[in-house]
């Protein structure tokens, strides 16, 4: 009998071109996503070698990190950003790569447009010069972020050198109470295992709570796998996956669809398949989660008190925690609820999808953003924006006093002019609260769309359950 295999191992084995002893495997890549920030030096390298892009048909480019979210018909003020966007356009033209340009109907954040258009399918290997490529594992693909040298490798050879990562089963069981979302699950996991807990591993999320999540919720979970140090996070394809992909632009059609579905059904991990590590998390008693520090592992229940760095197990950990609290201007033992905020950000590849906007809009309908708060709502893609506008969500946000913007990474990475001022506090649906991530000197609380919406209308950090019931 064949050895039982994990989902990861099935996809890995099928994509090995060469595996020699003492060297990393040559792994074939089915889909290469690129954007303006991590590609220019890779194209320059390829150009120097005098080589073409091996498979432009397996490569898709978008503009997302430094694109403005205000009026797209105006010229871009930032000359460096403008030059970088123009470079991407020139490179795509020169190398024959399809580009979803800023403002075009298919443009958006790379990790939003690829799943929504059906490009990401179970069993595929997907890479991008972007750590949040882990997002796409939600559809049963093996997807991970790479550096620019590796972008050059994939452009030129459609392959990557990779050591086989270890596998890590993340069992998430239980039933979520009202007001608790996928973002709270993943923040709770990262708080439990730490930002380096998954290093060297690929996560496979399993368990009853995962089975009950929609694809958009699964995308939120897998998106933040990298924040626990895992390069990839995966969820086995099931009926929810198949239903999601049915009829999408890039999904297989007719007879190929039937063959694809049959193939996808073989992918889930076999009974008895072994993982290198395991962790389990019970989520029935989960509360909304929020971060208080400067990495996504510094998270806690919104109802808890800020932990004391003195409890850290090593000196370096204690120093990092103390530095984080100084940066955030918070104290051990302090309550986080009711702390005032200056900015509320709803968007990003973690939570910029239509279901995220719907949840926030449900809280904000008929309410006003507090006078002291500036709120930005940035849909993840033009498609999300169109859908939201067709449902009237834009009106809900605008009537509440929030800014309704054009799609892009925006204030998640603060490269496009949307940024915090030094010392400002933001509550944000994005995925990183590192020092200065949302603007030099800015301070970030990561939370779910519900918590962000509830806090925006209250003007301070609020448990959404207290206003939606």
């Amino acid at each position, binding site marked *: 009998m064949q050895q039982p295999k994990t989902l990861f191992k099935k996809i890995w084995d099928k994509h090995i071109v060469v595996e020699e002893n003492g060297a990393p495997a040559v792994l074939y890549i089915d889909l290469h996503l690129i954007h303006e920030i991590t590609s220019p030096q890779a194209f320059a390298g390829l150009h120097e070698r005098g080589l073409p892009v091996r498979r432009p048909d397996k490569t898709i480019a978008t503009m997302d990190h430094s694109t403005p979210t205000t009026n797209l018909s105006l010229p871009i003020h930032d000359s460096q950003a403008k030059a970088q966007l123009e470079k991407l356009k020139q490179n795509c033209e020169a190398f024959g790569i399809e580009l979803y340009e800023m403002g075009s109907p298919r443009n958006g954040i790379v990790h939003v447009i690829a799943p929504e258009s059906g490009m990401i399918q179970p069993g*595929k290997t997907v890479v991008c010069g972007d750590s949040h490529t882990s997002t796409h594992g939600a559809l049963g693909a093996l997807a991970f972020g790479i*550096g620019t*040298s*590796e972008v050059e490798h994939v452009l030129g*050879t459609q392959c990557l050198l990779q050591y086989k990562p270890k596998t890590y089963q993340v069992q998430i069981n239980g039933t979520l109470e009202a007001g608790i979302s996928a973002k709270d699950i993943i923040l709770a996991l990262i708080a439990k295992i730490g930002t380096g807990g998954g*290093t060297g591993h690929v996560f496979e999320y399993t368990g009853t709570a995962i089975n009950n999540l929609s694809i958009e919720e699964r995308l939120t979970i897998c998106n933040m796998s990298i924040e626990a*140090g895992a390069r990839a996070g995966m969820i086995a394809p099931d009926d929810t996956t198949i239903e999601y992909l049915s009829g999408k632009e890039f999904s297989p059609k007719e007879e190929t669809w039937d063959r694809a579905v049959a193939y996808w059904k073989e992918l889930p991990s076999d009974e008895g398949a072994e993982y290198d590590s395991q962790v389990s998390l019970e989520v029935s008693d989960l509360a909304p989660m929020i971060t208080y520090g400067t990495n996504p592992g510094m998270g806690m229940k919104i109802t808890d008190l800020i932990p004391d760095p003195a409890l850290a197990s090593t000196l370096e950990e204690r120093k990092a925690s103390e530095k984080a609290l100084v940066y955030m201007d918070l104290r051990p033992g302090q309550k986080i609820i009711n702390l005032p905020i200056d900015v509320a950000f709803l968007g990003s590849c973690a939570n910029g999808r239509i279901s995220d906007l719907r949840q926030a809009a449900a809280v904000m309908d008929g309410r006003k953003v507090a006078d002291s708060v500036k709120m930005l709502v940035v849909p993840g893609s033009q498609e999300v924006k169109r859908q939201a506008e067709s449902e009237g969500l834009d009106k809900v946000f605008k009537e509440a006093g929030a800014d309704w913007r054009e799609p892009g990474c925006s204030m998640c990475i603060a490269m496009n002019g949307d940024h915090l001022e030094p010392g400002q506090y933001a509550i944000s649906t994005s995925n990183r609260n590192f020092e200065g991530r949302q603007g030099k000197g800015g301070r970030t609380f990561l939370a779910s769309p519900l918590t962000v919406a509830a806090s925006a209308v209250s003007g301070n950090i609020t448990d959404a359950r207290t206003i939606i019931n």
Partner: protein
Amino acid sequence: MPSFKKLTSKIIPLPLDNIDTDQIIPARFLKAIDKESVVEGLFADWRYQSDGKPIPEFVLNQPAYQGANILLTGDNFGCGSSREHAPWALVGWGIHAIISTSFADIFNNNALKNGLLPILVDTKTHQSLFDLAEENPDAMLKINLEDQTVTLPNKNSFEFPIDAFAKKCLLNGMDQFGYIMSFESQIRDFESTQIEAGSII
């Protein structure tokens, strides 16, 4: 890629866990389209005040560490974004080896492609190196990649792990692109038997 064989240098201590790539190089420095100019952004928000003046206490600004090449730092170094600008900036400043108890995966991969050696140590060795750097800031470490050893001023030494392929690439300054290209015929076979034949849908 530059090769790495031996290195003798003072230790630059930066005793913090989980230093992320947004600290190593903040996002506003990622708009460059070359590799050379990104060094300006290295630890920019820890090195400079908002008016652009250097922060004298930050270790990279201290005169004693100018010209030093070995960074000693906390666990999970390089977590966060995949930006290869982080090793470009570190190497641009003169850091050629980093010692820690762990490195984030993507950072580790990126470092190895830029002649930057990540040296993994256990917590005891890690602590003794911090003690050494504090007691004697002029202490020199000798790194020998061929032997996979680090030698302390008292002539004691310890070994560090590195996989054979990464070691070969670093010792020879070997370009991994060329290595993948050497399998061109296997890649072509794979495409015709697996991809085009529809075995992978």
